[in-house]
């Protein structure tokens, strides 16, 4: 079954970047949302999302507000969240981890770092599933 990764970021360039780094794997689908609000809509439509990469610094609904809403949303299954943080936003990153994000990745990051984090989370999740 195809892996689904949702990328939430208000920068269209970052989306291109994520597509190039994450989307080249067969059997994987990269979904895109440009705001927290759009992300919630996509997730409502896609109950089997496997991982979320989340930018904090977004207008309207920022990453932390999205995380709060998502965690308290009552969705049957919550995907693990990786925060994409930038220098100077360490407080926000900590708040995100406190709110339930499983990992963070500091920009600028190498494509290999991103792939590594994604792979380890997805494998960890698979392991968990196969145990239940």
């Amino acid at each position, binding site marked *: 079954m195809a892996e689904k990764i949702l990328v939430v970021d208000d*920068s269209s360039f970052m989306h291109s970047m994520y597509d190039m780094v994450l989307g080249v794997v067969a059997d994987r689908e990269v979904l895109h949302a440009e705001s927290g609000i759009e992300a919630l809509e996509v997730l409502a439509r896609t109950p089997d999302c496997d991982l979320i990469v989340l930018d904090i*610094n977004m207008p309207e609904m920022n990453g932390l507000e999205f995380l709060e809403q998502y965690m308290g949303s009552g969705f049957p299954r919550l995907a693990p969240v990786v925060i994409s943080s930038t220098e*100077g936003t360490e407080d926000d990153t900590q708040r995100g981890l406190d709110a339930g994000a499983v990992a963070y990745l500091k920009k600028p990051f190498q494509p290999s770092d991103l792939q590594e984090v994604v792979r380890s989370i997805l494998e960890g999740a698979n392991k968990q599933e196969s145990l239940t």
Partner: protein
Amino acid sequence: MNDFAQELLADFLEEARPLAENIGEAVLELEREWEGGGSGEQTLHRIKSNLHTLKGNSGMMGLSPIEQLTHRLEDACAIVSERAGSHEATTIELLLAGADALREMLRLAAASGLDEAHGRTLLDPVEKAIDAMRESSATAPGRPARPATSVVASATSAAPRDAAGNVVRIHYDKLDRMLELVGEAIVAHSSVGELTASADTSQFERAMESLDKSLRDLQQTLIDSRLVPMSLLFRKFPRSVRDQARESGKDVRLELRGEDTTIDKAIMDRLGEPLLHLVRNSIAHGIEPAAERTRLGKPAEGRVELSAEHRSDRVVIAVTDDGRGLDESKIRERAKACGLSNDSTAGELNSHIFLPGFSTADDVSKLSGRGVGLDVVASSIQALGGTVGVSSAPGRGASFRIELPLTLAVLRTLFVDIDDETYALPLSYVQESFRLGDRNPSFRVSPGHHVISWRDQLIPILDGGSVLETAGAGTRGFCVVLSVSGRSCGLLVDGLIGQREVVVKGLDTLLGRSDCLSGITVLGDGRLVFILDAAEIAARAARTNTPRAAESISGAVTANPGEEVR
């Protein structure tokens, strides 16, 4: 750079360039808010947010000069936030210089590449200025004073440059529609094919109509995708106006109207320079210094309006100011000195300012130091298939009007016959066409100069054959009334063929220039048809015919209606 990297860079730039523009605009907004006593908090937040995105993205791209610059500018913004209430003008200059450096770095990254050394050169002055700002004690809060000297070396004044690369953004829906239409066209095309094979002419017309419609719709959709809003160009002006106003010590407010008006991107890209020149002209020569304006009972702040609107299938762009207007006596003097006709109306005299060599050398150098005169503006606009005109009210202001076709690519024209050749007239300039007869008697004003009566006016007319210098002896049975920048004239032709859409190609210079031809088009059957330059024809008609002479014989018309002189 490999394909992936190239594509990524293109994506980066496509997002970064508008962000950098936004930052520049936001700084100007911040300045206005501070001058009005506001805190500018939201605008500052917007600037920080954009810088933050650029910092992250440029870091991902490995463009470290940009990453460092945006980081430093974020620092500067943080200092500004801390010193809330202290709105120093030097801060604005610093942020503007930072925005300029950012734009330059992006330009380099797009062109030859942004190397460390070059990046350093751009980054250093900004860093120094921010360090200075950090060390200086905050001045008392209040309205910012005009800086006597800039803290940072003044960056190049932002001349309107090519908007966001050679790219247009097109909505997916449009692309889908185009695919649909191509599909329909292919279907219609194959029906036509089948019908030709079976020689069933009855259905032929219907199939052709259907094919025709699909192709037209497709063409229109494609044309529409070339249209971009004028705001992309207009947004570059507030900075230039601000800088020039400060340099010349005048108080000027720029107003924008009709920014949503769409225009072909190819045309808009070439409009920047001439438009900038007209705006600078208004500020340099039109708007009076604040003290003089107050003396005259005008508001101290001068007003320059940049506007755009659609009229039938043209776009009209105007630069209007409430300054002193054109100096008509000076123009009249200059016209005499140049040996130009003296008995012209004010309107005609004013249009002389677009002639080459008309502006005196010191006028031109005062303006932009580049030796660009209004004649270059006029020829740039004409090269785009448009016209420029001016109207002025002494003491109240002046308005420069540019009229342009909506698209360079496809032109709606009227096909006419002159001396056994077919020519195309741009439909946007055609007011009306009629058969010559007793109801429109033409009168000879003086040898070679004619006027004709049309809608209760007397308008100058030109013979098509003499305009084109063809030796033929066709019978001029029709008159096509052309209207350019508010003035009408008639062109006498042998016959009217009908309306046609043509794809315009420029004239090859090898063919030898003819002033009255503006382009050439190839018809479906391979024939070449010249496109007539309506603006040039109208100008020629105006030059050889004067309304005063026309007026003197209108008396004769009322006295002897129906008299015709050939």
